[in-house]
């Protein structure tokens, strides 16, 4: 359920880009998210992760996400 919500938020923030969300523990609060987007090109890792945090601000603030792992990639 939370995977769906997170996926939708990321797809909304990164339209047309490659987005995946994995529930790492099956408990619905530890996630691995991966985003591949040309928006990351030329950005530092801190800036790239900030864009992902911005997209997930609501579930980060309300406690839906207990632990988040982020992997970002620009275009090859």
């Amino acid at each position, binding site marked *: 359920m939370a995977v769906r919500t997170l996926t939708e938020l990321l797809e909304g923030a990164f339209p047309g880009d490659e987005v995946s969300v994995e529930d790492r523990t099956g408990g619905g609060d530890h996630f691995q998210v991966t985003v591949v987007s040309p928006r990351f090109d030329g950005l530092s*890792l*801190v800036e790239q*992760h*900030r864009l992902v*945090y911005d997209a997930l*601000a609501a579930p*980060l*603030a309300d406690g839906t996400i207990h*632990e*988040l*792992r*982020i*992997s970002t990639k620009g275009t090859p």
Partner: protein
Amino acid sequence: MRDEIKDVIETSDVALFMKGTPQFVMCGNSQRALEALRRAGAPVTAVDILPDPRIRQELSALSGWPTIPQVFVRGELIGGADIVEELERSGELERTLREKLGDELSGVERTVPVV
């Protein structure tokens, strides 16, 4: 409290805000960041954010970074566990540390309170 946090960030070579202490880590991501820093020989000044929820609130307000751990080198936010691990893999972590702190990385760890 905010001034104390700011002081740790600005005056430490490497500041690690974590859940628990280096001797007793309370969270997997804090462990990952600490281990990557140790392997790179970083002199880590650790702050346990768990004693008071305000530490985390103030820290995130200062850094604009919502999650723990947070790693700073000479006042600059480097990132959380994922970024520190990625920088370690690419060799950039050690390069940055040597660039900013010099070639003699002591690896000495200490823990400081902010409350």
